[in-house]
């Protein structure tokens, strides 16, 4: 967790996007933004790899197919592990579990965040106080040790991993979404909806939520990044679901079988690079969302800046 805390979804709190932006220009802005396009292209490649894994590398990727610790060659593009498994097959198959857990955790924690944030902002008063208190406590408890403790007590398995990651990951998104929802809650059109007697659920999900679409998207991306990274970390510690093939488990075995000390760099490099590429691609999309919605961060020089650099 980056920088455990620094990379947690809460970091997006500084964003102050324009509130009521027409949706079409947002999509258009994203599609013409280089960062967004690069990010989306990388993500599409990985999603395609994950879907096609059983076709590209049929059979169990963990089966032993060759001699141990072979260097990359024409036959095994990324070499073999200390057990003699094909590293490329492990890496491609690993994308399935990693992307699945990352996306599930991302959507689930954003969903919890939306519920808590909207309820906080809409009802205010006591409910807001209570929900904010819980959110802040969860934000403050050290994430990684909490992950480790929870994973140690719960029975091992994929469900546990997802549950534990959502429990430690929702608070950041809740805080960001609450502050955004609060600013929309104070707008006149919400007051009008309240006066006209609309139901609470309708105001929250039909009036307020659509107006914070871009920040929900930013939060979702940050949560997916968190999910993928934290799953890898948990599995690297040997606390994940050992029966699945994933990038984190690949790295766990690389560490356990002494790939570092024997110099088999090809065993631990691919999975790490894949995690980084996916996280980087998502971060690029996230920055693009930021740039599209927050004109101040765009790469246009303001007249003031040009003057200043000219005077130097």
């Amino acid at each position, binding site marked *: 967790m980056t920088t*455990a805390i620094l990379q947690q979804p809460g970091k997006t709190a500084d964003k102050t996007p324009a509130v009521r932006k027409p949706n079409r220009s947002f999509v258009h802005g994203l599609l013409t933004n280089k960062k967004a396009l690069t990010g989306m292209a990388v993500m599409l490649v990985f999603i395609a790899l994950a879907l096609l894994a059983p076709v590209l590398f049929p059979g169990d990727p963990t089966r032993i197919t060759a001699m141990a610790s072979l260097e990359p060659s024409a036959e095994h593009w990324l070499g073999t592990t200390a057990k003699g498994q094909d590293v490329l097959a492990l890496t491609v198959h690993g994308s399935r579990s990693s992307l699945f857990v990352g996306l599930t955790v991302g959507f689930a924690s954003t969903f919890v965040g939306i519920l808590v944030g909207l309820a906080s902002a809409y009802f205010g008063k006591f409910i807001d106080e209570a929900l904010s*208190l819980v959110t802040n406590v969860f934000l*403050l408890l050290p994430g990684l040790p909490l992950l480790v403790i929870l994973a140690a007590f719960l029975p091992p398995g994929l469900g546990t991993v997802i549950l534990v990651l959502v429990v430690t990951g929702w608070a950041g998104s809740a805080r960001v979404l609450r502050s955004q929802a609060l600013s929309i809650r104070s707008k006149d059109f919400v007051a009008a909806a309240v006066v006209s007697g609309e139901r609470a659920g309708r105001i929250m999900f039909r009036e307020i939520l659509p107006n914070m679409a871009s920040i929900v998207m930013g939060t979702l991306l940050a949560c997916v990044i968190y999910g993928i990274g934290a799953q890898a970390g948990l599995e690297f510690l040997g606390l994940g679901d050992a029966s699945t093939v994933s990038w984190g488990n690949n790295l766990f075995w690389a560490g356990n079988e002494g790939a570092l000390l024997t110099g088999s760099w090809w065993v631990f490099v691919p999975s790490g690079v894949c995690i980084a590429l996916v996280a980087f691609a998502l971060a690029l999309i996230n920055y693009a969302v930021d740039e599209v919605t927050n004109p101040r961060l765009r790469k246009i020089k303001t007249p003031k800046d040009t003057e200043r650099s000219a005077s130097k």
Partner: protein
Amino acid sequence: MRFILRRLGFYLIAFWASITLNFLLPRFMPGDPVSRMFARSQDRMQPEQIEALRKLLGVDDRPLWEQYIGYMTNIFTGQMGVSISRFPTPVTEVISSQIGWTLLLGGTALVIAAVVGNLLGVLAAWRRGGAIDSALPPLLVFIGSFPYFWLAMGALYLFGVVLNWFPIRHAFTAGLEPGFTWEFIGDVGAHLVLPALTIVLVSIGGWMLGMRNTMIATNSEDYITMAEAKGLRPGRIMLRYAARNAMLPSVTSFGMGLGFVVGGALLTEVVFAYPGVGYQLLNAVQGLDYPLMQGLFLTITAAVLLANFLVDILYVRLDPRVRSN
């Protein structure tokens, strides 16, 4: 003062929540961690110690609320039981022998990352579109995308195994007498380089981008224009006018960063077998040493809360708006 009291109340609630979590986890988890643990260590333990552990972990016939009160009393009198994996050392002793290493590693990394990152952020925002602003953020974000245990593995492999520049495991060379001698301090420093470097590398981007974005907002304030109109030197405007006012969010991040120091260094410590609390926590989990696990978690939480509270007090000093409200 009211602000401080409010915050103090909040931290007490957070601490109570983590104690309660600690209390409830072994009691409500499916399966029976306690009997697994006893099966492993029964023959080495005295009957009365087993009895005390049963109470600590909730294998106990008393009603739940009575257990809860007993548990709280134990925590506040510092009785966290004995460690199973390092039997019969008390948990408190194990923790106190290791927290210093974590503070050393995390503290060094945090200070370096915060100082360098903030300076880079200031420079990047001051020269928008300049070399620092256009080259570093994407690079640092890319480095920050790597899981940091993986960067640690890479650094260990490259600088430790291939180049053999730095030692790769533990906090100091085995057999060296700990003490305030130059030899020992130098040895500890050499062991510190790789773990600290990897933490700095992944966290510096967050500091830099945060500072850059706040600085960009500050730079458009009227008092900056005014300072320029007065003809002050650019360096003075940048540091004394703009950066100084853009520092506040960084102070808050510093508080959260301290949490990362104690808790987040866990993965780095594991990769380098650095004998801090994080490494010990993982060992405790693997050895089914539940008392030690719980003690470590509470210690880490307490340290994080304390650090945040200190930052809050500092915040009151720095920001007059908090004082007047």
